[in-house]
């Protein structure tokens, strides 16, 4: 089937679904949705529908972003727009099927909003538009343009919404012209480095080699970040198309090209959906020989990570692709000259590739018109931690941190005070509330001692301890260090020991000075980016929250109530109603009391597991 015919067929089918004469039920079935319980919903739908004698189409879709409201189920009744319902439990689903589909009660109180699609959709009384919701209003969807709308297992859905038009257009351009467009757009790498994408493509194009490798970094190792997972699961073709355009721009007329997508081992659904997408792309001639009649050949394969954060580093990723241990290499000679198998190699992040088709479709000026002077376009962030609205958000570069936390994030859960935002994962730093008016972009974040990283944005409140946060990242990196060079391997271990002592109340002020010195040495002496950026969380917490370090050391206090050695649990006799729950759940028998009388925690037996606090319904357990 030729592309035009495929486009017509796809659009017809997509429109038919939007105007379906039977109800269509969309279920958010990405990993976040499944983690919230969407799997159960998908399992029960067929029997529930037949019990109600209803015919309906069930479409699994990816993640539309507001994961805190998952499971998300959209119901599109014939003649009515697609309405997204939030936090749908099996009971609520049954209610919705009965009331919405059989009767006419659309349950506005259970709805999150109307998912707008197509040229004309009518609003409904009492149900706002989804994208008018506080969390979604300031967003601009470029990389996430299809996520949550399409069925990721159907290439036709992708094509119906404009998929592969960018590729077709690119084939009519000269490779140098494509690189020029990317340069004009100002696209910078979205994986963390922020390196100019056009510059990278250009140097790989100019490098000498009989084969050029075009790689996609899907290793997203930053804990707290899941933008790439969502994109790979919910819209795999956006990545494939972007990588294809890159392959053409870099290799056409110069050398043959081979492509790999390296996906983290911990993302099985992403691997599954990508593999399926690749199969379908091959079937329809978007991969293989003479793609779309252009004369360009390109094959793309998936390879999987083995559970190593360091394999997100480009040279370690390439060693892993070669079937070796993921030890990075000193990169005085760039991968663009000698990378995978010593050949010129281009490596870009998932999100970077996902933006490319839109830049080709809409032109570079459109992309460059969004964002700030040094950082063009949009960025996907995973907004997590202590905010009310957690999930994936895509905003133009330049949104302030305050807007991210207060407007989009909806403020801090439980009405607590915000303390800081951590960006850039283990390579980044914390940014205190006093600096929240900075505009989020590559250069601003670097200026305050953090970095953009892959987009993880972790909001911390007064209940988070900055020393504990520093220790957390150091522990993480110590486990993930490849161990090749001394400053990183040994430096992280010693930093961990020092920070542990501080959280146990056994620290000294010289420790802070030593951490600082060790951090400086690691930043300049380590072999790769992991070791070089490892001190960032430690150095930035010392810089902005020195008081907390001093409190732990000099007063042996953890004001956030986190460091177990420095806190104790007790029961307020005024509030305790003697319900006995704490005693039932206490693993050591420390919480005891007679029924209906105030209970007491025996400090000698208490191991500070915090379960009593979890189960108490009276707020009677105090943490000091």
């Amino acid at each position: 089937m030729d592309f035009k015919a495929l486009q017509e067929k796809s659009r017809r089918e997509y429109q038919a679904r939007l105007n379906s004469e039977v109800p269509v039920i969309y279920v958010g079935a990405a990993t976040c949705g499944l983690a919230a319980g969407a799997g159960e919903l998908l399992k029960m739908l067929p029997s529930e529908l037949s019990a109600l004698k209803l015919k309906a189409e069930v479409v699994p879709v990816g993640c539309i972003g507001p994961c805190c409201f998952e499971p998300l189920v959209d119901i599109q009744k014939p003649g009515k727009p697609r309405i997204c319902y939030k936090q749908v439990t099996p009971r609520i689903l049954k209610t919705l099927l009965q009331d919405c589909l059989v009767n006419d009660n659309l349950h506005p109180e259970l709805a999150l909003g109307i998912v707008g699609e197509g040229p004309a959709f009518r609003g409904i009384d009492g149900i706002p538009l989804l994208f008018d919701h506080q969390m979604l209003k300031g967003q601009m969807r470029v990389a996430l343009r299809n996520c949550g709308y399409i069925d990721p297992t159907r290439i036709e859905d992708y094509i119906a919404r404009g998929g592969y038009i960018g590729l077709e257009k690119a084939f009519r351009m000269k490779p140098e012209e494509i690189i020029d467009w990317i340069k004009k757009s100002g696209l910078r790498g979205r994986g963390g480095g922020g390196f100019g994408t056009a510059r990278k493509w250009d140097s790989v194009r100019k490098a000498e080699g009989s084969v050029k490798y075009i790689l996609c970094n899907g290793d997203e190792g930053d804990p707290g970040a899941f933008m790439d997972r969502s994109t790979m699961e919910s819209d795999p073709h956006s990545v494939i198309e972007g990588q294809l355009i890159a392959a053409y721009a870099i290799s056409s007329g110069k050398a043959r090209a081979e492509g790999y997508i390296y996906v983290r081992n911990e993302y099985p659904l992403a691997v599954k959906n990508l593999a399926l997408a690749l199969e379908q792309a091959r079937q329809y001639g978007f991969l293989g020989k003479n793609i779309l009649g252009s004369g360009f050949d390109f094959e793309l394969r998936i390879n999987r990570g083995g559970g190593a954060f360091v394999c997100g580093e480009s040279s370690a990723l390439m060693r892993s692709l070669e079937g070796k241990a993921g030890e990075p290499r000193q990169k005085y000679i760039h991968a663009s000259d000698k990378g995978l198998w010593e050949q010129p190699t281009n490596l870009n992040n998932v999100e970077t590739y996902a933006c490319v088709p839109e830049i080709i479709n809409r032109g570079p000026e459109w992309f460059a018109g969004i964002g700030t002077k040094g950082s063009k376009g949009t960025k996907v962030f995973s907004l997590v931690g202590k905010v009310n609205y957690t999930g994936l958000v895509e905003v133009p570069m330049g949104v302030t941190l305050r807007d991210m936390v207060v407007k989009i994030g909806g403020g801090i859960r439980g009405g607590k005070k915000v303390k800081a935002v951590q960006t850039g994962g283990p390579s980044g730093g914390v940014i205190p509330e006093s600096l929240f008016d900075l505009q989020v972009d590559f250069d601003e974040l670097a200026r305050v001692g953090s970095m953009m990283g892959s987009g993880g944005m972790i909001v911390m409140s007064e209940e988070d301890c900055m020393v504990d946060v520093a220790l957390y990242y150091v522990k993480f990196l110590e486990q993930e260090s490849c161990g090749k060079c001394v400053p990183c391997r040994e430096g992280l271990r010693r930093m961990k020991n020092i920070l542990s002592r501080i959280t146990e109340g056994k620290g000294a002020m010289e420790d802070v000075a030593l951490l600082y010195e060790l951090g400086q040495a690691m930043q300049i002496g380590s072999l790769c980016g992991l070791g070089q950026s490892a001190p960032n969380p430690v150095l930035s917490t010392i810089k902005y929250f020195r008081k907390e370090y001093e409190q732990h050391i000099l007063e042996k206090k953890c004001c956030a109530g986190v460091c177990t050695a420095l806190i104790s649990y007790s029961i307020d006799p005024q509030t305790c109603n003697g319900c006995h729950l704490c005693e039932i759940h206490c693993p050591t028998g420390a919480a005891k009391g007679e029924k209906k009388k105030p209970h007491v925690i025996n400090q000698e037996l208490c191991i500070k597991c915090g379960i009593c606090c979890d189960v108490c319904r009276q707020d009677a357990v105090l943490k000091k």
Partner: protein
Amino acid sequence: MGQEISAKENVDLKFVDEVIGRWYSDPAYLIPMMQDIQARYTYLPRPALLLLQEKLNLPLARVSEVATFYRALSLKPKGKHLVHVCLGTACHLRGGPRIADAFKRELEVEVDETTKDGEFTLQTVNCVGACALAPVVIIDGNVTGRMDASKVKQMLAKLSPAAAKAAQAAKAGKPETKAEPARPVKAKKASSPARASKLLKKSKAKIASRKK
């Protein structure tokens, strides 16, 4: 000698051969090959590794290096049930370590260890990308978000051999053997989002009234 080891460790060398072929017999795919072998045996049996070395013409030192470098690969057999507690940043901030501690206590193992009866292996994982639903626990590939340390006992009870027997007995219509009664508890902290929004409203109201 190879044959004896295979018999002892019960490795189907034809399967290993098939895996090698599945990945183009290309040593660059050593890691996916090992992952596929481990998916079947829960670990990397030595006879399988020796066959990989032979068929791919690799030094054994390289096979050994790759098998021990990557956290997803294991030279030790795992238990019947795999418990992964996510300790990514979001999960850490929302009580992940306490949940890991609860599993350690209940199962009486350390991380990366298997219970003596071979039923459970406890591991931690650094972020599966469900951060908005932290804290997250993955048991046998099933991801559960909004986890709570107080739910751990219940969860394990459902998977225990006693529970499995009871489930089988129920299916066969026989009278159940009494399993440990797991008290259903409604934990206070946001284990249900509805609860969370109620709490939020309550505390917002508290703050508002304080401001007045």
